[in-house]
């Protein structure tokens, strides 16, 4: 049984390594990760077949010659099939990774973003930056305007004050010159 524990542990380690590789962005690592993952799974299937035993061949064995239990052949058959499938898939995936690397404008073989996704997110991003820029522009513009208004008001007030002072010097008895003039008309 100790053999099966080692097998299971090895399978688990391979699966862990495979999962870590599959989470990468580079295509060649993805392919290698899939292969490692597949090998781990194959080991686990082998573990599922039970403890080790004699080769499962009855031909040529005299009855009662070897009493050790036979190994279960079904998991081995399944693993063989899985290996063949993995081989074909890996070859194709590597070809795709190569093609993807050749087609890309960058040197690496990273999986590229989806164009549609990128368009959606980029569109939103551009919109957001545009809005921000416009808001900043507007703020600056309004600050400027406010400053100008304030300046104009200040000037106006200063003008009024100067005018009042001037009139106060001319005619110290009256503050309101408008009424004064209309009164003088009467």
């Amino acid at each position, binding site marked *: 049984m100790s053999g099966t524990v080692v097998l299971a542990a090895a399978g688990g380690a391979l699966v862990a390594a495979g999962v870590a590789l*599959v989470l990468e962005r580079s*295509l060649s690592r*993805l392919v290698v990760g*899939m292969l490692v*993952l*597949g090998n781990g*799974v194959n080991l*686990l*299937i082998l*573990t*599922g*077949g039970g403890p080790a035993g004699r080769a499962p061949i009855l031909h040529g064995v005299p009855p009662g010659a070897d009493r050790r239990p036979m190994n279960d052949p*079904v*998991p081995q058959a*399944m693993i063989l*099939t*899985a290996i063949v*499938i993995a081989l*074909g*898939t890996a070859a*194709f*995936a590597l070809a*795709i*990774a190569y*093609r*993807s690397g050749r*087609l*890309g404008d960058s040197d690496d073989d990273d*999986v*590229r973003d*989806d*164009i*549609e*996704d990128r368009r959606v997110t980029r569109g939103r991003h551009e919109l957001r930056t545009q809005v921000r820029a416009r808001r900043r522009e507007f703020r600056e513009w309004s600050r400027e305007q406010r400053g100008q208004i304030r300046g104009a008001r200040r000037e106006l007030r200063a003008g009024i004050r100067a005018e009042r002072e001037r009139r106060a010097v001319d005619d110290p008895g009256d503050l309101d010159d408008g009424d004064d003039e209309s009164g003088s008309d009467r």
Partner: protein
Amino acid sequence: MNQLLPLPVLMPLLAAGVKITLGPRHPGLQRVISVTVLAAVLSVAVVLLVRADRFGPQTVQVGAWPAPLGVTLVADRLSAVMLTVSAAVTLCVMVYAIGQDVADADRRTPLSVFHPTYLLLVAGVADAFLAGDLFNLFVGFEIMLMASYVLITLGGTAARVRAGTTYIMVALLSSMLFLIAIGVIYAAAGTVNMAQLAERFQALPSGITLLAELMLLTAFGIKAAVFPLSMWLPDSYPTAPAPVTAVFAGLLTKIGIYGFIRAETLLFPGHATRPLLLAAALLSMVVGVLGALVQVDIKRLLSFTLVSHIGYMIFGVALGSAAALAATVFYVLHHITIQTTLFLVAGLIERRGGSTSLHRLGGLARTAPLIGLLFFVPAMNLGGVPPLSGFLGKLGLLQAGLADGGAFADVLVVTAVGTSLLTLYALVKVWNQAFWRVPAEMPGTSAEAEDEGAAPPSVRLPAAMVGATVALLALSLAYTAAGGPLVSLTERAAAELLSPAGYIQAVRPQEPGGPS
């Protein structure tokens, strides 16, 4: 007569081999071979369907090894009816592809690649439907997926390679999960024969069967594009050539659904995952249709409605009653046909209008009234407008949902009605923009855009492409015309699914019910 059973797998495989040997020579002969083989598969499937319906599940033990040891092929009513419809659809798509090929003689898709790969795909699909054990189901999936990797990256352009990578990696991961599930099941039950598993799972602790069930359903869920596992589909399908997208959208996801039906009736009849499936169905419907509403590309829009309609089928599987299963099977058949038709029409639109983007299309109802008709009827069918088959399927599902009586099921019934309306809205949006809008209303109509728009209308649509689409449309209308017999057939299939004793007896006749 049961020796017919391996033929749907063997004939396309052999033909694919012949075609690889021939290479690019004798294109005419190759086309004849493809169509003949697919027509033969269809006729064998029809014979199997009739026999499975009359005499119960048809089985063949490959190599005469008895059931738990060897490979068993089984055709019960569900398998046979799925096989028949998929054979009809693949035949029509082949004719369509040939029409496209002949028309584009100058820049044709590589004949020596497309035809053998497509036949391999058909063989894999048939193998998956006929598989009597889980491992053979896995092999069928792998044959089909291997072919689909080639088909989705056909031509190797940058867009297709990018979309293909996503598809391949996701499919590889789901295969890996499927393989782990098989390993777990073999370690727990000591067999992968589905009939024997059905017996042995009953003796196992519920925790182990739940683990096995969840792993299988995850693997199938990725293939069927059920909501949390569906993100790959709208990204990868639309870039492929129109016939490839059509057959992928119509068939490949439905094989995942077939896996769901098999798992939930034969292997795990206990409905332990019912709340999970109901939630997945709800989210698939809502997320899929909301995604569809905002798309501007017809192919992407259709891909999103595909995700949303997978939710209906999961809903039926989750309910699990005889009426629900019958409605699900009917819905699957309807959806295979209708989704394929719509993608083929999208291909026609692309040919005629030069694009599938709603921003660039317009006025097709006037310039191409036939495409208008070909789009309108399946679109209304997908939305569930009454006399058409989509309505019949949805009605069956809603009735089964109401009969179920659970609160969650009622919520899903309401959601299903809402989703149906939103689907109709999304498709009407396509109709308004692509078909009814006067080209002058189109945004950004500059002189350059008008030049682009002026070039395509001279394109004549090849008769084979239109003919294949019309044939599929006729098939979907036949579901309405022959609604009564078809519904009773799906009801018989559901009854058969719910009493697996007949299936088990057919696969392992020598031991009635006893564990070996």
